């Protein structure tokens, strides 16, 4: 047994299902905070979805949208999404920082840097994608109700549903993409730390 240990090979194993399992549990165990993080993305995407639905309604009614209004919408949506991204980056940084010791321990047990990165990205993406789906549904739903009550339910029937669903799908992709961007820096920072430094951290 011990004779084999003289040979050092390269660690290659990346247990994805384990990374997923740990990510899921971390979300569950910090459920309150995960919800706050997720609601940041949810609100940003919901806002984008309301704007997209509004545009779809205006197209259905052949209302000309002024350039000024269009620019203002883009500006507002960009701001909202930026704030969501900053929010989720902040929560992931916190989540990583309070788990430095855990990360150091995992590296002692043979975890590769890639495993640590994967674990945090999965954690971020799980929250980000679920929040984006909910955000798109809530945003579009609320705006559809507003249109129905304000401009009459007949407008809903005239909407180009194909285009609208496509754009809402893009919203969800955007939400997922932004979460990915927000998570990658904190995750990398955690993974690249020498284990000794990670274990030394006292919070």
């Amino acid at each position, binding site marked *: 047994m011990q004779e084999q240990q*003289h040979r*050092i090979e390269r660690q290659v194993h990346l247990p994805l299902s384990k990374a997923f399992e740990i990510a899921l549990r971390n979300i569950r165990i910090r459920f309150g905070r995960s919800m706050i993080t997720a609601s940041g993305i949810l609100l940003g995407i919901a806002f984008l979805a309301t704007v997209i639905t509004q545009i779809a309604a205006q197209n259905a009614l052949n209302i000309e949208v002024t350039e000024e209004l269009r620019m203002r919408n883009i500006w507002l949506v960009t701001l909202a999404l930026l704030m969501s991204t900053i929010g989720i980056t902040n929560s992931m940084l916190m989540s990583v920082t309070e788990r430095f010791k855990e990360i*150091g*321990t995992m*590296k*002692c047990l043979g975890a*590769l840097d890639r495993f640590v990165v994967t674990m945090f990205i999965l954690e971020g993406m799980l929250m980000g994608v679920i929040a984006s789906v909910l955000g798109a549904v809530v945003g579009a739903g609320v705006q559809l109700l507003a249109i129905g009550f304000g401009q009459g339910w007949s407008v809903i029937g005239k909407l180009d549903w194909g285009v609208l669903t496509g754009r809402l799908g893009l919203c969800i992709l955007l939400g997922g993409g932004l979460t990915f961007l927000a998570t990658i820096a904190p995750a990398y920072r955690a993974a690249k730390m020498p284990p000794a430094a990670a274990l030394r951290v006292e919070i």
Partner: protein
Amino acid sequence: MASNEYVVRTKDLSKEFMLGGVPLRALDNVQLDIRRGEYVSIMGPSGSGKSTLFNMIGGLDKPTHGTVFINDVDMAQLDAQELAYLRCRTIGYIFQTFNLIPVMTALENVTLPTVFAGVPTDEGIERGIELLNIVGLGERLHHKPSELSGGQQQRVAIARSLANNPAIILADEPTGNLDLKTGKEIITLLKKLNQEQGVTIISATHDLKMLDVSDRVVWIRDGRIERIEERADLDIKVGEMEGVES
């Protein structure tokens, strides 16, 4: 018992930290050879450099000068993946603060290193149960760390350190967070594993209870080895019987 084969060798090992812009020499030219199957305690007050030495031997930090050989392999020559392989299979780590993964049960904590090693799940679980039985926690497989006492958590950590049959167990102040009685139990357990499984144990500590079980004690002060005491020197008060055999 200890063989004549060296499992750990350090050569001119030095480590400097920058502390407020001033270099601080935490380890200064440390030469230490540890034989396979030995129980070695590294003793010294806080700040003496024993934890730094622990980190160097464990491949958790890089030395400023000098080399550490594990099974005649120069650790400085290993890339990240080879280091991960070494940490996973050749070395088992035990910490003062236990460092169990809080979201996982005792059994899952013990099987985690086997997961990283690519051992099939069933085999890993079997091994985990066997190890938790060895450390006396066969009844607590599915408890989370927060549901276990300090001594029990350290037993889980010891079981985890053995998961992939390592050649070396590195323990950093393993009794530091435990009361006297629990600390003694942990030391007895480590000694038992050392004798029954033949695993080399290297423990950084300032717990004098460790003296009784150690084959050698390395005293460290200000980053240098002050003296090394053999079993024979340690037993003078008790008698010469044990001293003869080593």
